[in-house]
């Protein structure tokens, strides 16, 4: 099997956006999530803000407009395939599907997203705009 530094199951331990030096906790103060890079080069990831209130009705079909917006803007799930380079480092991912329709069929390469593995941690950095980056730290389960 080809060398692969990212393969495994990862638990989210930190997530924030750095907007020109200002920290924004876009998934709340206790962000949660899981990310799996399989050995057979599939990827699936979900992150969520566990502190948002549940739907008062208890039913997905009976959310309020605010509840629907809060759900969409406080979570995302994606899946697809990925590749690694000759050193086993993350190269790119093809998102086949997502809970966010905008992410379907997008390719995210290292020019947008990097995954740096250091021991049992993986630091994910996504460029959003000039001076604006999303940082997610994962810990190997």
């Amino acid at each position, binding site marked *: 099997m080809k060398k692969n530094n990212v393969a495994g*199951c990862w638990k989210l331990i930190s997530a924030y956006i750095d907007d020109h030096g200002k920290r924004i906790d876009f998934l709340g103060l206790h962000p*949660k*999530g*899981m990310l*799996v890079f*399989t050995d*057979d080069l*599939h990827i*699936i*990831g*979900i*992150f*969520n803000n*566990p502190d*948002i*209130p*549940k*739907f008062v009705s*208890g*039913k*997905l*079909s*009976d*959310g309020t*407009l605010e509840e*629907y*917006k809060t*759900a*969409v*803007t406080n*979570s*995302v*799930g*994606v*899946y*697809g395939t990925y590749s690694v380079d000759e050193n086993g480092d993350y190269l790119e991912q093809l998102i*086949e*599907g*997502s*809970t*966010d*329709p*905008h992410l*379907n069929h997008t390719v995210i390469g290292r020019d947008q997203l990097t995954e740096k593995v250091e021991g049992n941690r993986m630091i994910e950095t996504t460029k959003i705009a000039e001076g604006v980056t999303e940082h997610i730290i994962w810990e190997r*389960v």
Partner: protein
Amino acid sequence: MKASKNILLVVFASLILFISVAGKTTNSSDKIKNMKKNKVAGTWNLISGYLDNHGTHIDILGPHPAGMLIFTEDLHFMVVVHNPDIPKFASGDRANATPEEYKTAVTNSLGVYGTYSVDENGDFGEEHVSGSTFQNMNGHTRGKNEIDVKVVGSTLKEIQKIADGIGVHLDWERAK
């Protein structure tokens, strides 16, 4: 379309109602033993998803449902299912969608992750939801009474029981 959308809403709502807190625990040695013959471990692609309401099939995730399910060897699971045919947000920005777009996004997709166990035969035992894109699911446990999982060759057939004669059928194919 509207009718099937409404059914989808009912299904998801019902799914939540049927989540129960099973308290069964498995000790570590059993877990290791069962892991060796884990039949569900692997990566699975969704090939079919519908609601069977007393024999009537309803496409709850549209006519082309898509998704991925992964059961890891170390007993974690992740699943994302969605209707790939829903329109993108007109604004191109999920922070600025219309109320209808937000509702459509939530009711046409679901992401869930957590841990799971298998029984002594390597069959699905139960799953504990650590987190979800639908926050009401967080922290719940679903066992064989709520989800029936059968692996036949390269296909995994999952039935989520909603009520008597009503169930969500998800068919998965092992990814190549």
